[in-house]
């Protein structure tokens, strides 16, 4: 009797341990349902070799320029370049940072994907383990979650702080805390591609989207520290003839 009870106990313990191991594995390996995981890791060149450099009509062209509502247009009318926070070294956020003409590094871990941008030394973490953001997770880069599907990485980012130039660096379009950015990353040959979509009901009448690519960085390339300097960032501001007194 005693030995049978002890045997049942061992089986029960083994079962409990198995459950714990399985649960722990599911946290570390968030994608265990057989989804094809693309190899996105590496150093990527987003400069002029890969795509046209950003400007007032790149990547937002006549074809995909966001449809602004009256609130966004009102902001644009009072906006002038020198109030953009980048002149105080505030980093660009999505959807601008993905198109900045600098290099980027992607690192894939089982429970997260790390995007490190050379511009402004920014690091975005895309959580793959199903966690959800809390109110304290509001930030310049927002909070990103993702999953692999059909050979691509799908990312959804929310919890952005309000940003007077949160849409891009050139058109004076703001973004609100309701901004949602979705990205789909995939490989074509050696190139990394992304389709990015922005929704922001406070300023956009409909979602806006662009598609672009990175090419492999030059051999031996190592990301440098950007270390934005406050004096350098604001040095040209005094050359701007403001319309405000």
């Amino acid at each position, binding site marked *: 009797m005693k030995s049978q009870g002890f045997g049942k106990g061992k089986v029960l313990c083994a079962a409990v341990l198995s459950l714990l191991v399985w649960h722990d594995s599911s946290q570390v390996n968030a994608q265990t349902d057989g989804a094809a995981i693309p190899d996105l890791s590496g150093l990527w060149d987003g400069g002029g070799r890969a795509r046209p450099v950003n400007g007032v009509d790149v990547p937002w062209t006549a074809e995909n320029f966001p449809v602004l509502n009256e609130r966004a247009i009102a902001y644009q009318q009072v906006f002038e370049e020198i109030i953009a926070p980048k002149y105080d070294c505030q980093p660009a956020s999505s959807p601008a940072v993905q198109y900045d003409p600098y290099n980027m590094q992607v690192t894939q871990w089982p429970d997260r994907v790390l995007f490190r941008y050379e511009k402004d030394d920014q690091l975005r973490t895309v959580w793959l383990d199903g966690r959800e953001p809390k109110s304290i997770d509001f930030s310049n880069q927002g909070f990103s979650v993702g999953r692999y599907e059909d050979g691509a990485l799908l990312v959804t980012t929310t919890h952005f702080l309000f940003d007077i130039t949160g849409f891009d660096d050139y058109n004076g379009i703001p973004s609100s805390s309701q901004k949602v950015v979705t990205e789909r990353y995939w490989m074509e040959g050696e190139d990394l591609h992304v389709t990015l979509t922005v929704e922001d009901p406070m300023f956009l009448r409909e979602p806006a989207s662009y598609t672009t690519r990175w090419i492999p960085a030059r051999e031996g390339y190592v990301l440098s520290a950007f270390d934005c300097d406050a*004096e350098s960032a604001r040095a040209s501001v005094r050359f701007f*003839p403001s319309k405000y007194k």
Partner: protein
Amino acid sequence: MSTKRLISAALAAATAGVALLMTPVLAHHASGPFYDPDKRVEIEGTVKRFVFKNPHAFLFVDVADAAGANVEWQIELGAPVSLQRTGWTPETLPMGMVVKVTGQPSRAEGSTGICCVRMTRQDGSPVLSGGRVEEAVQPPR
């Protein structure tokens, strides 16, 4: 050192859209709000200070005005994170070096700034030894 200020709408129109830059300029901000692409200015001056920091390197030079007094000009260059990959260092433009610069003048009245420049040593040779001085199409800023 002499200052030659060439502000010619005709010349500017002829060169408009053709960027005059010997070093890569990468996007941080649009230059249009700060500098006038329809005008050109040419100076020759002595390096006073070279700030080699992101997001833009800046060069400060002393230029003699018509009365012989020194006026400080501020020249906006590209991002050091990219310039350094073409050989530029914080020591590339040492104090006392004489440079010739042509570019777009700053907009604010009375200001002395230039961007989008073509820059050489006083004798017309490249700033960087072994480098080239060329006019190239400048990507949007």
